[in-house]
């Protein structure tokens, strides 16, 4: 079984983003970019399936600017076999990404596609579900455990009330939550080896997908600030303030 893992190049999770003063977006110049953390978990899970003899090949695909090839290299350095870069400039919405991934999936015919549950830039949490819909495949989002049973996938999901386990008929889509695994670091030898692994260069126009955004971004603003309050000296003062000043007790 081939496993396809879509990965996104995003602002590194340690970077505190700044909104541009003209309201046109956030400052991306000279900002460290990395693989979306949920996608790292997806790559890791695919690699574990391969190491357990349940997957034969792990293919990493990214949609974005030319620099997204660095993100693919990160996946290859972790251990993925090869990459596909679908070049697309500007804001590509989850729906368009899902349409491009559908085309890639139809060419690659994977038995499983694992995606991060959301990207930490736009926080949309849509692409996996949309791809499942377009392919007509079942989906298990927010996975904390993935098991293969014959041609089925048994997935435990993190839901509001606790955990839910579902069984999907393959081929299927799984999106990762935080507790699925802890992604490995790429070793130096593997980083060197990754440079020789193939990346297929494609362009969005190869697939005939319309990338015109459906959502027009009118502006991007700072969130309303919250000021720090006071430090209290002890529990007695805290209780007194909560009772009389805040009125919440």
């Amino acid at each position, binding site marked *: 079984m081939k496993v396809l893992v879509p990965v996104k190049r995003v602002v590194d999770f340690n970077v505190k983003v700044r909104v541009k003063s003209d309201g046109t977006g956030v400052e991306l110049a000279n900002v460290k970019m990395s693989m979306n953390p949920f996608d790292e978990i997806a790559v890791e899970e695919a690699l574990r399936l391969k190491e357990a003899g349940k997957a034969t090949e792990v293919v990493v695909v990214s949609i974005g600017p030319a620099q997204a090839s660095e993100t693919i290299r990160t996946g290859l350095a972790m251990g993925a076999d090869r990459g596909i870069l679908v070049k697309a400039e500007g804001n590509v919405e989850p729906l368009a990404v899902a349409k491009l991934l559908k085309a890639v999936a139809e060419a690659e015919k994977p038995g499983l596609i694992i995606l991060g549950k959301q990207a930490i830039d736009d926080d949309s949490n849509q692409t996996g579900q949309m791809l499942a819909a377009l392919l007509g495949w079942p989906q298990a989002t*927010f996975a904390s455990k993935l098991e293969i049973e014959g041609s089925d996938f048994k997935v435990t999901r993190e839901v509001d009330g606790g955990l839910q386990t579902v069984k999907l008929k393959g081929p299927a889509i799984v999106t990762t939550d935080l507790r699925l695994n802890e992604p490995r670091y790429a070793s130096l030898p593997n980083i060197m080896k990754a440079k020789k692994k193939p990346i297929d260069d494609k362009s969005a126009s190869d697939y005939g997908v319309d990338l015109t955004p459906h959502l027009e971004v009118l502006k991007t603003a700072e969130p309303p600030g919250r000021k720090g309050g006071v430090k209290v000296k002890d529990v007695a003062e805290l*209780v007194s303030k909560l009772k009389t000043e805040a009125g919440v007790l």
Partner: protein
Amino acid sequence: MTTLLIAEHDNASIKDATNKALTAAAALGADVHVLVAGENAKAAADAAAKLAGVKKVLLADNAAYAHDLAEPLAALIVSLASGYDAFVAPATSRYKNVMPRVAALLDVMQVSEIIKVVSPDTFERPIYAGNAIQTVKSKDAKKVITVRTSTFAAAGEGGSAPVENATAAADPGLSSFVGEEVAKSDRPELTSAKIIVSGGRAMQSRENFAKYIEPLADKLGAGVGASRAAVDAGYAPNDWQVGQTGKVVAPELYVAIGISGAIQHLAGMKDSKVIVAINKDEDAPIFQVADYGLVADLYQAVPELTDALGKLGK
């Protein structure tokens, strides 16, 4: 122009997230119908019919909708699509799962986790873990919207809408329910609790959550939350996680204990009315958003606080 609100419920009753999403749905300016999809969910449909401003309730009562499986639920919503211009659901785990599937089947872009309705086609939503707020205008004829419920007031009762049966759509049969582990608790649910007491990595163990956090929460009638670090370390179950990728909450009082205040955690609680932080590190970022900060060893301060509340008759 009609809006379909898809209800969060447990078959017997309507969840508070539905009341809040109704406020957002009503702000679109069109009539609002409510879809209750479940199994033996008549009671929930009757409760939805009583919500103020609801014009009609559709009840899809079928075993296919018993376990929140995305594929049959999305098929049902799409089968109703011709009668509606907008589909609104609370951004609960159920609808975060289902709604993008609906949107793709309708070939529209979902607007995720809106925090404000600016006009019927324009919305505010947080990006970058709430570090920026985007205003977006949807150009799609049919809109698919999920609502971050913590920023909308709950709609009350006062309606008496008719309940009609909706025909179940064909189940694609791609997935099946195996089981669930749902914690039974008498404490309020995090997303509707008036008070939340949360613990972080400094709690050091599950036992310490039970010994320090839970008695304080019970004294306050509060829900119990946790930081991602505490959940990752196994000190607390995943459904307690407050933060960008966990639950987003906005209670009257949020008590953060032994939580340093990572951006991802702040994103999940900074809209709380009053924030209290107890942490022994006086430079912890949580103090930058806390209304009342107490620099202290939680293992002394928390029992003291629990006792002090007891003396207040809590």
